[in-house]
């Protein structure tokens, strides 16, 4: 795929990519921007090469996930070193968005989930991916993705109950709520 063509496709997926990057970076906006920029840089340098073996979206999301993990690891190393850079100590983990009270509680409930479960729920419910596509992004088997999905759903429900989120009222239903798999 030509770079100009790829750029056009990436632009179409940009908003979804940013949402996924936010999820991978625990809703830290600056970190998500950094990750997304690094992903674009990898694509420009040819370090991340799309060979057309899968959907562009799943490939791109897999690259974003890997980059976010590697950036998080680097941050962790920096925080362990004696010279701590500003913002690397986890003080900016919380989102800088001003969200509604319900969204804030929802975010807190999501943050309580293990990473894999949170990622699976995000890919299925936020990005409208099937479980097999989510499994491809996360580089796990479909069976494993299904387990993460079921357990994540259960734990999220329990967490939302604990947080007291009345998620039956006041939400905007998404039009495209089709089959998951």
């Amino acid at each position: 795929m030509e770079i100009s063509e790829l750029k056009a496709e990436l632009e179409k997926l940009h908003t979804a990519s940013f949402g996924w990057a936010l999820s991978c970076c625990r809703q830290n906006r600056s970190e998500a921007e950094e990750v997304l920029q690094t992903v674009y840089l990898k694509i420009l340098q040819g370090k991340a090469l799309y060979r057309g073996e899968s959907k562009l979206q799943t490939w791109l999301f897999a690259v974003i996930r890997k980059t976010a993990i590697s950036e998080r690891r680097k941050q962790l190393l920096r925080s362990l070193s004696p010279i701590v850079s500003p913002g690397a100590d986890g003080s900016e983990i919380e989102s800088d968005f001003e969200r509604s009270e319900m969204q804030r509680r929802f975010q807190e409930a999501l943050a309580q989930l293990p990473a894999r479960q949170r990622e699976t729920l995000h890919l299925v419910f936020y990005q409208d991916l099937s479980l097999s596509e989510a499994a491809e992004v996360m580089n796990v088997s479909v069976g494993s993705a299904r387990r993460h999905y079921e357990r994540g759903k259960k734990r999220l429900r329990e967490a939302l109950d604990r947080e007291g989120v009345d998620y039956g009222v006041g939400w905007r239903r998404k039009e495209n709520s089709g089959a998951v798999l």
Partner: protein
Amino acid sequence: MELGGDEKRIQALFSELSFENQSRAPQFEHLWTRAQANDTGARHPGRPVAVLVSLLVTAAACSLVVWTWYTSIPNSNSVIQPVTLEARYTPTPVKAEQPRKRHIARRRHVERSIAIEAALLSNWQSPTQQFMSSPTDLALGSLPTLNQSVKDLESFLSKNSEIMKESNQ
């Protein structure tokens, strides 16, 4: 798999999150151009540094190998060397930083002591030398000349033969 009641509610929460994120997403062009700027900026200076570092590492490794090899070889000069007098009295090599005058003075002092010792050695006599001398040294020490002995023997024999003839007659 149809979404159940709880799933629809969860999806609704995610939809709301998606709606909020969409309005706050950065511009694609902004991130893309920043990535492009980083690409051109970071690509070129990175490579020479990497090459320089790898060269330095290689040079250090080579010198380490050579040094290890050199120190493992036994010194051929240390194998059985006759100790000469000069070598015995030659002072141990002084440090390079010591002044040259001091080195010359020490060398002269050593040479003078060698000369004195050599003179003493040449005049030395053994205390048992007198027991080795004898009155017969002159006779034992000199050999008769061969012709002289033959002449003496001829004269002696001719005398003896004349005496024997006279006694027989």
